[in-house]
Structure formats: structure tokens, C-alpha cells
């Protein structure tokens, strides 16, 4: 008798482990997973705010990082980023002038907006406003950084998927 109960218990546990019931919240799409176990993205194109790795500018003058204030970054929402600029030796560059370019090279178009740095946040941080992506896919963000009479550029490439 005890074996029977034990077997039943084991079987039920095994079956239920593989088959969670379809609940209301899942039907609404919350907490769904994709086939690879990642949380399902239902935005039509997105990435985590801190997806971009810190990069050196082309001639090695500066190290630049760019983090979105909208997390995750999604399409069709105008939002701001924080840029951080430091010299090659890691000293924050607090007097930089930064111009923005970018877009989707594959589609031969730029950003749908004209983003620009609107504020020097001190400590090498800068507020970049007016960022917007209007479709999923590969985007580039190019920053031309000038400080102390020297300029250098850096291009970030990233995908909203």
C-alpha cells in the first residue's frame, strides 16, 4: 500500500513539474518565456538599458560609455541617455562638447529625431535627450567628442530585437 501511494505521489509530481497550468496571467502575456527560456519580449524591438560596452574612441583619446535612462530601451518612445566621458587614463572629462549622429546603416536612414546633449551633468556625465528608435534591428550611435582642442569619435553598434 505504501509503495502504491509513493508511486502515485512520484508520478503526479513528475507530470506536474513539466506541465504548469495555463493561467490567466499567462494568457495576458505576463511572465511568458520564449523557447530559449528568455523572458518573452513583446515590445517589437528592445534591449537592456546598459547593453553598450564602454568603448575607446577611434584614436584612443577618450573612453566613452552610454546608458539609456529608459530600461529596457523600446521602439517608438522618445527618451534620454546618460553619456560618460573620461580620458584614456580614466580621468572624467567634464568640459567635452559632444555631437551626435547615427541611424540604421542597413536601411540608409538616420534617427527619426535629432538627439542632442542638453546638459553637462558634471563628473564627466552628459545628458543626451531626444533619442528614439522607430524599428527593431541594428542601430549605430556615433559621438564626436571634443575637449582641450582635440576631437575623436566613437561608434556604438547595437541591436533592438
Amino acid at each position: 500500500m505504501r509503495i502504491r501511494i509513493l508511486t502515485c505521489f512520484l508520478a503526479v509530481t513528475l507530470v506536474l513539474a513539466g506541465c504548469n497550468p495555463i493561467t490567466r496571467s499567462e494568457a495576458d502575456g505576463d511572465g511568458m518565456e520564449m523557447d530559449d527560456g528568455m523572458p518573452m519580449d513583446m515590445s517589437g524591438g528592445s534591449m537592456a538599458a546598459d547593453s553598450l560596452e564602454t568603448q575607446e574612441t577611434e584614436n584612443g583619446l577618450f573612453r566613452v560609455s552610454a546608458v539609456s535612462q529608459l530600461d529596457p530601451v523600446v521602439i517608438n518612445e522618445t527618451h534620454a541617455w546618460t553619456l560618460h566621458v573620461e580620458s584614456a587614463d580614466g580621468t572624467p572629462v567634464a568640459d567635452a562638447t559632444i555631437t551626435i549622429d547615427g541611424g540604421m546603416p542597413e536601411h540608409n536612414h538616420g534617427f527619426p529625431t535629432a538627439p542632442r546633449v542638453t546638459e553637462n551633468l558634471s563628473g564627466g556625465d552628459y545628458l543626451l535627450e531626444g533619442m528614439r528608435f522607430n524599428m527593431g534591428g541594428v542601430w549605430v550611435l556615433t559621438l564626436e567628442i571634443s575637449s582641450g582642442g582635440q576631437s575623436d569619435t566613437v561608434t556604438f553598434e547595437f541591436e533592438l530585437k
Partner: protein
Amino acid sequence: MRRLLVAVATLALILLVSVVLIATGLVGGGSVGVAIRGVFESPAGGAAPAAHRWTGAERGLIASLSIDRLPSLPPDPSNAVGDYPDAVALGHALFFDSGLSPDGSVSCSTCHQPDRYFTDGKVLANVRDMDTPRHTPTIVGIAYSDWYYWDGRKDSQWAQALAPQEAPIEHGGTRTAHARYVLSKYRRLYESVFGPAPDLSDTTRFPPEAAPLEGETSGTAWEGMAEEDRGAVNRVFANIGKSIAAYSRRILPGRSRFDDYAKAALVNDWTRMSELFSAEEAEGLRLFIGEGQCTDCHNGPLFTNGTFHNIGLPLPEGSKFDQGRSQGSLQVVEDVFNCLGEFSDANQEACVELRFIKLEGEELVGAFKVPGLRNVAETAPYMHNGVFPDLEAVIRHYNHAPPAFPGHSDLVPLAFTEAQSAALKAFMLTLSAPPDAPPDLLRQPESQE
């Protein structure tokens, strides 16, 4: 031995019941459940769900288009009365009131007809037998837009509503006449929304027909007015727009068959998916989100990214090249009724779209706003110039995608087969649904009938 047999039999029974439960879709939302159901619902099993089988990424993309993902309508910071019931009532009356035209023949609803999803079915908007340069777009769900008109030369629904009032080949009115008409006919409603109305009775200060229209007698009259008096008239005129916007922002898209399908697709409910979509419609959806790359621009729950693209449209004989966004962007910056202007209720910070508007770039030349595709089957003809009479013609254009001149086309030729083209169209027909709005807002106010 007997115990062992009983135990094995019980185990077998439990497994059988579980598999049946999973196969019917009662339980089993996880990947194991999906895999088990796949065995039972394979084409060989007779249910033919291959058409309705989606990867996780595809399901995410389908869900991104669903009306379930549409946030509730955010307030328009530039229109403080946008959600006032009395403003809705006033706007409702004004929308249908042909008294807002000198000859009493034109109202907003002349072109934005409720029984045609607020379009007019014409190639180009046309009143009094005069064509305007562009095709009438729908206003259903348009409150979610950042830009208005095909070229985005207005940045709010209320600013948009004002322009046709004075366009000589549309309403053909003037703002002093409009202000006087609204204040005499709707004074109680107006004052309940906007407070005490100005006194416009002095016709030397407020000429009967005055508007900033170049080359018109009304323009000369407008120039002759004191700046303060012009401001008072502009204020009433802006409030007319804000009332019309309060009404039209209530007209939202309804739940379509596609939205029910998206909900079923999200949980891999193949039985429900098969009930809702034919294999052809599902194939059309597959092309729409996949090979067709349609979601590059027609994305999100309203099937538009809200921005401007040149798609190399043919130029109908006798018509001039239309600059589209490259001009519209310059116009909206100059517009006295824009988000940053004195008649806007928004603080400067809230005018993000206008502050970061793109004014330069070859991609603005000949570019027009991506129209949403909800109810697309109900709103022929198509494009800013109404050049395509039906969806077949639209798909033919996308199949060939000729280069644009001037500017550059954002399209690549789809080269779909006839069957694929038909499937794409079949999918688009699933996007129709009656507008989501209180029924009384979808017809003329009873007081006017």
C-alpha cells in the same frame, strides 16, 4: 508482485490522464506541455496546426501588435481640457456642425465620416468639387500620434483641427467668424469648459471675417487688428480646436479578430488559433512579421511607428512632387499653435517631440507619416495621394518597390508570389473592428438632428 502491478497500472493511468489534459490544452503552458501537444496536433493528426505554430520570438512579435499591448490613452499635456466631459460634448457638436463654414456645407464629418471609419472613400479630400492635395486619413486611434497630417505639420490633435477651418478649399471660414459663431451658439458649454468668454461684439475691433490668410481680404482685416484683440480671437479659436480634439480623441480602435488570435498565439492555444484564422490568414501574418518586413514601420499595437518614410510612390499624372515631411517639419516649428506656443497648455519639458524634431536629412524628402493599419480594409483608397484604389494595388507596389525620385525609398522589393500576396491581404482583412467609442459619439449629436 500484485502490489507492483497495481502501482504500475496506477502510474500508467495517471500518465494517460495527464497527457489527455495537456493535449486538450487544459494544462501545460510550459515548454514540456507545448512539446506534448505538438505530438497530438501535428498535421498527421488531422488538426493541421502547422500554420499556427510560432516560435517564441514570433509570438513576442505578434503580441507586440496586439491591442492588449496598447496603453490607455495618455493625456495630451498641450490640451488641459482634453478629458473634460463638457469639452467632449462641445467638440462632438462642433465636429458635426456645418455652421463652421461660410456656406453651411462643410463640417469635420464631411470628410471624416463615422460610417467610413472617419474617412471619405475619395482619392483626394474634396468638398465643393475642389480636390485638396491629399487623401483623407482616418481619425480612429489618431490621438496616440505625435504628429498630425500626412506630413506632420501639426503636433497636436487640436492644432490639426484648426487648419481646415480656414483652408479656402475646406471649411473656408475665418477665426473671427468661427469665434463669434461658437460663442453665440454654444456659450454655456464653452464657458463651462474655458471660463468667461471675451466680448467680440465690437465689429471695428473684431471684423466679421478676419484671419491670417495671405492675399485675402480677411488677411488685411486681420493685419488691421490690435495685437491684443488678435490674441483674444486666437484664444477662442485654439479652444475650438481643443474641444474638437477632446471629442476625436475618444474615437479609439476596437478589438479585431487579429487581437483574439494574438492572445491565443501567446499561449500556443492551437485550437483557438485554428478557429480564429484560416491557414491563409496565418500565412499572411507570418509574411507580415517575417519576410515582408512590414513591422519595420507598421509596428506596435497601432501598426505604425509614427514616423515618416518615403516609399517611392508613383506620381499621378498632372500632380506635382509632394515634399512631404521635409516641408511639414519646418511648418510645425513655425506654427503658432504648436506645443511650445502660447496657446499650448504644456510646459516646455513636455514638448519632447517638438524640441527634438528632425529637420534635416534626405530621408525626409517625399516622406509621409506611416498610417496605422487597423481597419485598413475599410479605408480605401490608399496613400497620402490616394494613388492605390485597393489593397491589391498596394501589395503590387511593395512587390516591385520602384526607386524614389527625389529622395530615397525605404522599401526593398518583396517579390511575393500571387499566393503570398493574397495571404498578406487576407491577414490585413483581420484587422477590422468597429471603433471603440460610446455609440452616441459615433453619430451626429441628437440636438442637431
